[in-house]
């Protein structure tokens, strides 16, 4: 999927699973959006039927319906734009991209998944772009693994803040706060950590009483990144 000739079948399976999970989540949301528009169209037909029987449709009712459809189409377009941006992250194994935009897009795609698990996902991402050269797809797969680990045994009221920062050492961070005591959370390690290293990233974590912070730090090893392209 990423064009990495050295990629093992296990890595490909993991990448496909990640791609599938994101696609399933977004298409579920799009199905909800289209279902609402479909039912709204049905409601308009009902109101027209009623109007033909001599019961006029109040203008404010039509205004409210139009606003609802407009909101849903905007919501649908937002999902499509984000899914499209995610899908294009596979175009090139290594590319220059804005880390903030990628993190924001990733967080938006994961928000519904988190909400379904009763976890409040928010972001702390600066407006200014942070340009880096790395492998956007593999990076997002790593981020996905971390979020998945956090969401494996969630408790109602848990919070996850996805952050990003630039400067000399660009970083993506996850701050997961449990509503009660801190549980065990799987960390990327072993072969996975080595894979992150190959695309110029390292990962470390801090575990507190009720909080876990996982940081992805960009090391900017362009020679290591180039290795993937060969």
């Amino acid at each position: 999927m990423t064009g990495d000739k050295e990629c093992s079948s296990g890595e490909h399976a993991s990448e496909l699973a990640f791609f599938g999970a994101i696609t399933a989540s977004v298409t579920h949301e799009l199905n909800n959006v289209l279902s609402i528009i479909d039912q709204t169209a049905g409601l308009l037909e009902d109101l027209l039927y009623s109007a033909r029987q001599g019961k006029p449709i109040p203008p404010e009712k039509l205004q409210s319906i139009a606003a609802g459809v407009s909101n849903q189409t905007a919501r649908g377009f937002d999902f499509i734009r984000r899914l499209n941006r995610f899908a294009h992250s596979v175009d090139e194994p290594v590319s220059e991209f804005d880390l903030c935009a990628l993190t924001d897009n990733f967080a938006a795609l994961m928000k519904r998944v988190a909400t379904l698990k009763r976890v409040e996902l928010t972001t702390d991402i600066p407006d200014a772009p942070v340009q880096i050269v790395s492998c956007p797809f593999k990076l997002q797969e790593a981020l996905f693994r971390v979020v998945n680990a956090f969401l494996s045994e969630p408790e109602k009221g848990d919070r996850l803040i996805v952050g990003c920062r630039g400067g000399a050492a660009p970083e993506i961070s996850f701050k997961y706060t449990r509503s009660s005591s801190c549980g065990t959370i799987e960390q990327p390690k072993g072969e996975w950590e080595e894979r992150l290293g190959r695309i110029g990233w390292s990962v470390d974590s801090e575990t507190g009483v009720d909080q876990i912070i996982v940081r992805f730090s960009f090391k900017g090893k362009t020679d290591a990144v180039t290795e993937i392209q060969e």
Partner: protein
Amino acid sequence: MNKFCALLIDDEEELVSTLTERLEFRGIEAEYAVSGSEAIAKMRTKPYDVVVVDMKMPGLSGLDLVKILQKEHPSLPIIMITGHGAPADEQVEIPAGVFDYLPKPVSIEVLIKKMSEAVGGKA
């Protein structure tokens, strides 16, 4: 005129409120809740003849809610709404005792037919 009262439960308020309005337009008494906890509270104060539960909801999931409803209201017919297609497509199992499931998008006519069948002749 249909003679039953339905409770629809889905966290997508715009969807569930529109469905409720369309059912009422057809003479069916219907109410909605946007969470499992709201549904449980409503059902403790008013009897319903059939409930329609979305499978995927934040907080109390559709499956969790069904378990609670089956315990508190063992004879209540339950219809589940799935995201796309058959439950197997979503790798979930419809709990035993659930009357039937419908995939989204739900046709109003199919929903009424299914609810009528579930309440057994009250339509």
